[in-house]
């Protein structure tokens, strides 16, 4: 059963941008695409733990600011020749609010 937490207004995250959410076990990046979809991923690139929330968002991907790895927002998978994966978490928009599933905190605690 899902238990959605209201995080913030959609407009608090710029289009083709991201903001970071602090948790007890590290940061999660919340992305907003040009089409107003939202995605939540660990804020650490599988390469050298670069802060993905600071990357350039294009289509449904983000490019890590440190060494230009391109990460899929949908799967967390590194694109192209690079190999690696970032954990992703359920996220959605409702009435202009960004919601994350409380279970992601549990998943992180268990990890």
């Amino acid at each position: 059963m899902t238990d959605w937490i209201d995080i913030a207004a959609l407009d608090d995250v710029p289009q083709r941008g991201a903001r970071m959410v602090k948790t007890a076990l590290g940061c999660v990046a919340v992305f907003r695409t040009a089409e107003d979809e939202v995605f939540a991923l660990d804020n650490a690139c599988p390469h050298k733990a670069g802060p993905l929330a600071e990357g350039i968002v294009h289509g449904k991907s983000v490019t890590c600011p440190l060494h230009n790895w391109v990460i899929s927002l949908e799967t967390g998978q590194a694109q192209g020749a690079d190999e690696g994966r970032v954990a992703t978490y359920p996220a959605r928009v409702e009435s202009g609010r960004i919601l994350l599933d409380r279970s992601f905190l549990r998943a992180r605690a268990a990890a």
Partner: protein
Amino acid sequence: MTQKLIVIGAGMASGRVLEHLFDAGADFDVTLFNAEPRGNYNRIMLSPVLSGEKTYEDIVTHDTDWYDANGVTCRFGERIASIDREAKTVTAENGDVLPYDKLVFGTGSNPFMIPLPGHDLEGVIAYRDLEDTQRMTGLGPDNKCVVIGGGLLGLEAAAGMAARGVDVTVVHIMGHLMERQLDEAAGYLLRKALVDKGITVKCSANSKGILGENGHVKALLLDDGTELPCDLLVMAVGIRPNVKLAQEAGLAVGKGIHVDDQMMTSDAHVLAVGECVEHDGAIFGLVAPLYDQAKVAAQTLMEQEARFVQKELSTKLKVTGCDLFSAGDFADGEGREDIVFRDPARGVYRRLVIENNVVLGAVMYGDTSDSNWFFGLIRDKTDISDMRDTLIFGPAYQGGTPLDPLAAVAALPRDAEICGCNGISKGQIEDAIAAGATDLGAVRATTKASGSCGTCTGLVEQVLAVNLGDDFVIPAAASICGCTDMTHEDVRRMIKSQRLTSMPAVWQECGWKTSCGCHVCRPALNFYLLADWPLEYQDDPQSRFINERKHANIQKDGTFSVVPRMWGGITTPNELRAIADAADKYMVPTVKVTGGQRIDLLGVKGEDLPDIWADLNAAGMVSGHAYSKGLRTVKTCVGTDHCRFGTQDSTGLGIKLEKELWGSWTPHKLKLAVSGCPRNCAEATCKDIGVICVDSGYQVSIGGAAGMDLKETELLLQVATEQEAIDVIKAVTQLYRENARYLDRIYKWMGKVGLDWIKERVETEHDALVERFEISQSIYRKDPWAEHAQTKADRYQPLANLALEAAE
């Protein structure tokens, strides 16, 4: 049975007749007479020989081996004295009498010499053959030359000599240059381009006489009394068909030797081709119809059916840097409408003249890439009513197809002419490719396409690319990234010419293959748009790399570095105290002095940025832009303030420069330095722009680097005053950001366009460049730290903090 063929004149047309005959294996015993002491060469390529881009050897079309291989008896340097058509013999100058079965006239034309007083002085020449060209190449920077005639030939002569450093003046009787091919607007742009090349142009100028000294030309006298001194005077005012011999032989002659559609003269055994002929009232000076005539003449000689038809002609000028094209009829008139496109900044002009939905004429200047397509519309009288709205933008915009550099070529029909000189259509090139020609050289060898004047080389390569796909790589610059096939240069051109002022407009109009670009193209586009449209375009932080979005340099652990500006490297105890306080307050782990004479606070947490900036702002400091593709620092020495060797106030100039330039965005980082004397303590000669102060003023040099590449600057200009130095630096900075590719430092850009080009533009467009720089700075010369600290501070905080939320 072998027939005896005598050819009089080894020109481009008669040479082509022989090629066609030998290619077809026709059985002729050929004797070739030529008054010039040499064989066939490509006369239209004399201009590149003159400018030094080619040598005579490069433009020889037939060499001794070719004549030998085909059994041609060459009698070069010999004229024909007379012709006996009854007996079918010619008599050479030396008295030899030779019989013929067929005779071909290729006597060409004579340049028209205006019978001005003094026209027979030594040093008054035409521009016609290799001898004339050699006279002109004999001139150098110490010489002056006057060219009478502002038509195609005169301008090619003028530009060729100017390229050799000769001081050239063009005198033209009409109100604008090339008035037969260009309208006034295009004539104006052409004139401007020639003036930029250092050529003096006088239009509406009447020549009165030629003044001499000791039998040699000294000056041209105009009817307003102006004297134009010269060492050489070139008359390029037109040609007259050379009909003397034909007339003496009793052939029908008007302006030229009369020929019918089979290129036959009034005598069935005598043919004529080239500039000496008159067909249906017209005479010919351009190469394309000459080649058509040559083909027809060869077929007639071989007793094949053929017919010469006059076609629409188009003109291109072979002057480097002046791209112009004209075709058809472009005079104003009742019922005619114009579609005009202008881009003053780029010097681009396009005009189409339309009547009853058919294009009658086209004039293009500055960007002639679509000329063949427009020429096809004129020739085929295509109904353009459906594409009228977008017609002027060219074939890539028609029918809703996205813009692909190759789409324009792919869209051409098979009969579209690619090579105007040789009359080679796209279909012929495609056939050659299908038959195994896989590169430019092979296509050239089998079809001759691009083998004459060479301006269609790019098009031929594109036809190759369209047909061979991945098997052929156009030897050109790579595209920006996988989102587009266009190069940086293509896109910059589109942004300027189509007035694309937003990123979605670029994606749409340039056919981006992704929905919203990627981390490679978006920062480039963001820069191009704000550089070209500073007032219209809104900077997009989401298309900037994190450093520029957050106005701080990201470090490997995700923290940031903060560098406040120290104007010209000068600071105060109060500033230093504020920096020390900030370092304490935000627990900055590392404080370092940079190479740009300021202090770097490394290891600041992202969420502390707005606060540390606010504290630094309170002490009067602003962003140092240490993170930007823009102005970084202006390094200085202490100059006359303290140094016993200083020649000028280098520190003062450095501070002024930094205050004028700060906040400006450039294709890559921009580092400056000002040294107070040639001892160069500020290391100005390895900066993007460096100033060395000397007693007499300021040496502004550009293109230095001390990174992955090590480059010494090269002198741009020396100026007398501080203000001039500041303005020159603004001008060159503006030129750099309007033209360079994103992420090219000045030295890389300079390597592509050349210092001379930069110098020329800075000198000739100085004021306009400075003005555009100032317009842009009216938006960007401000402190982003203050703005972010005051209005966007919350963006630097976590969206939410769930650290205290119970996991269970």
